[in-house]
């Protein structure tokens, strides 16, 4: 939601200056509400309803097969001693804290490169955006398993240089790394947002800086980065939330097991296993709410810290 808000703000502040609301647009608002109504119904039935239900179920022993019984905080108490839950948190945090910064760095680098107005820019933009559309798909996850397999592409390239590779997705020390690379590879969405942000930085700052003798690196550090911090912040918040919800890649690459040896057991995957394989839906619901709290907490921290590094040039 706020993504669209940010972009809309950027657009409105374009060369033509501030856009004011015309009288006829008030009628449009009514129409908008009318047409949005089905979406609100969906939001209630598909999102908020199930969330409320899962909050209730998290205080029960619901097994999917039998009606739930109230057990108060027992599920939450069990979490304290569940070592596999702790492991899944460790795996997920590692994944988020390593892959999101790398992904944003890749996105920014590509955006800077594309911002220089190459020929065939539209084509490049689409090409680099493609992984974002594909990255979450089952097909790419299967492809990933092949590429990083014992006889996969990576090892064939390594063999060319005389290096004996191994099964990367099937070794507990490397499996999570392959998933991180997959996440970094899907840099397209933040890249497009960075590109939009770069377009908003007025050319005159750079002109002034180069007259004063600032080099490219200096310009990047003192003009581009500060003016881009709101966009970086926005991308960071969005990607952190997205990375916490990562599921498909780990599910497909590990064949639904989170293996080898729980090394790719994302929090969401463990939640799914508890709920649907172990028929422990009450516990899984409690886990879902713990995730909500964790993500909300991290986002709050993000917003608090933003005061110290995000620069709004208003």
């Amino acid at each position, binding site marked *: 939601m706020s993504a669209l808000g940010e972009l809309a703000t950027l657009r409105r502040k374009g060369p033509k200056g501030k856009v004011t609301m015309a009288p006829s647009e008030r009628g449009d608002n009514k129409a908008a509400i009318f047409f949005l109504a089905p979406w609100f119904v969906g939001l209630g039935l598909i999102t908020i309803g199930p969330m409320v239900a899962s909050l209730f179920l998290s205080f029960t022993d619901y097994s999917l097969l039998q009606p739930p019984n109230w057990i108060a905080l027992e599920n939450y108490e069990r979490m304290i001693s569940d070592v596999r839950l702790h492991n899944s948190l460790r795996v997920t945090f590692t994944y988020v804290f390593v892959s999101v910064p790398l992904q944003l760095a890749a996105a920014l680098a590509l955006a800077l490169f594309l911002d220089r107005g190459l020929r065939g820019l539209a084509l490049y933009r689409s090409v680099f955006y493609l992984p974002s559309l594909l990255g979450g798909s089952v097909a790419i996850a299967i492809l990933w398993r092949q590429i990083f397999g014992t006889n996969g592409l990576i090892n064939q390239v390594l063999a060319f240089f005389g290096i004996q590779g191994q*099964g990367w997705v099937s070794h507990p020390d490397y499996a999570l790394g392959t998933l991180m690379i997959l996440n970094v590879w899907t840099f397209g969405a933040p890249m497009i947002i960075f590109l939009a942000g770069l377009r908003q930085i007025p050319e005159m700052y750079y002109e002034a800086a180069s007259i004063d003798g600032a080099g490219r690196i200096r310009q990047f550090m003192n003009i581009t980065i500060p003016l881009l911090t709101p966009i970086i912040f926005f991308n960071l918040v969005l990607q952190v939330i997205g990375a916490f919800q990562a599921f498909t890649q780990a599910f497909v690459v590990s064949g639904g097991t989170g293996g080898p040896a729980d090394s790719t057991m994302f929090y969401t995957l463990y939640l799914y296993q508890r709920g649907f394989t172990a028929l422990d839906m009450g516990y899984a619901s409690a886990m879902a709410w713990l995730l909500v709290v964790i993500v909300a907490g991290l986002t709050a921290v993000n917003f608090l810290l933003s005061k110290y590094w995000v620069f709004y040039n208003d």
Partner: protein
Amino acid sequence: MSHLTRTKTSRRGFRLAAVAMAAGLALTACAGGDDGTGTDADAGDGGVATADPDAEATIKFSWWGSDTRHELTQQVIDNFMVKHPNITVVSDFTDWGGYWDKLATTVAAGDAPDVITHEERYLRDYATRGVLADLNEYSDIISLDSIDDSIIAAGQMEDGQYGIPTGVNAYSILADPQIFEEAGVEMPDDTTWTWEDYVEIAAEITANTPDGVYGAQDYGFNEPGFAIFARQRGEALYNEDGSLGFTAETLAEWWEISLELRDQGGTPPASTTVEIDAGGPEQSLVGTNSGAMAFFWTNQLGAVTNAAGRDLVLLRHPGESQFERTGMYFKPAMFLSMSARSQYPEAAATLIDYMLNDPEATEILLSDRGLPANTEVREAVRDQFSEVDQYAAEFLSDLETHIVDGLPVPPVGAGEVAEITRRINAEVLFDRLTPQQGAEQFIAEVSTATGN
């Protein structure tokens, strides 16, 4: 300019709204369907006593498996519907991996299939939670006359018959004689070989064959292998009451042998093992002509033989004559069960009877659901078995005098044990846990999962 933009936006908005509305409609439709099921189910319950066998009925039948099984089963269903024109059977099939997730979800949604294919590790979970019907109530429809009592017993629990085995299987070793020959190693005598022989033979084959060909595939990913290992020592994976029947030492020894195999080169490195394990029978070492021995269920012989493209041999487990007793057992390949909430239990029972007892069904399915449990039907279709199936059937009948007894129905929560075994096995193979630590963790986790 602004007018143009607005038009565009509202057109897009309209499209979005249309999609949302369609979704909304679909949702309402689902809800409507749910209501319908609920009411009908109530009516069905009341109508059991006076049900008319010729009444129209629509039942859902769920199973897991390969594409071959889906095609064969669909043929059987089509024949069944010709024979019983008043019954419509809706097929609901998926692969093994997604089957249990899907089943649990449909049961929770009150939309359980009428005829449910089941497996021993999940049977008690569903039966004790009231999901499955007691099939004794339909004994006038489902005939069990030609099925061996010990096989029927596999689907019995304290208070009823919750599933009927479609056929039997045995966990055994598939061996590739061509690789034995290439390695210059003699085929073992499987009535007398020991676990030490197994380790030695595997290492010797790896040593005498080109890189990438191994003596054996790791066996530790699957708990039935350990059940046999424990039984050979007079122990058991589960006791009758569902408690654990083995010592940590026995389980540790099982993993020590598998580390010995790995260290002497008999089995591939751990990461290769994990990869093979994820690939299924077709990508197994034996299936790809790159391994001499692997543990499989007898009804997988056909699939692995196809993949390998050459004849394979079935062997008994090592150590069958080494300790206190033999460990191998007949396992019901799968069960046919009925939902306790079926609207048309008679129709569902008719389908179960047809699958089990009508030669017409078995002529198509042959041994795909295990060697047929109905001995009369088995004899009637024996000539139509492929060579591979006939060979497996002979291997199984030879085992009849060798096998002491079956396994009790595993406890509630046994479905989780497969996952626990696979995970701890990987921990042991990658040296993250010692066999002893692995065994202790296994016991702790399985005790929690099964509530013992």
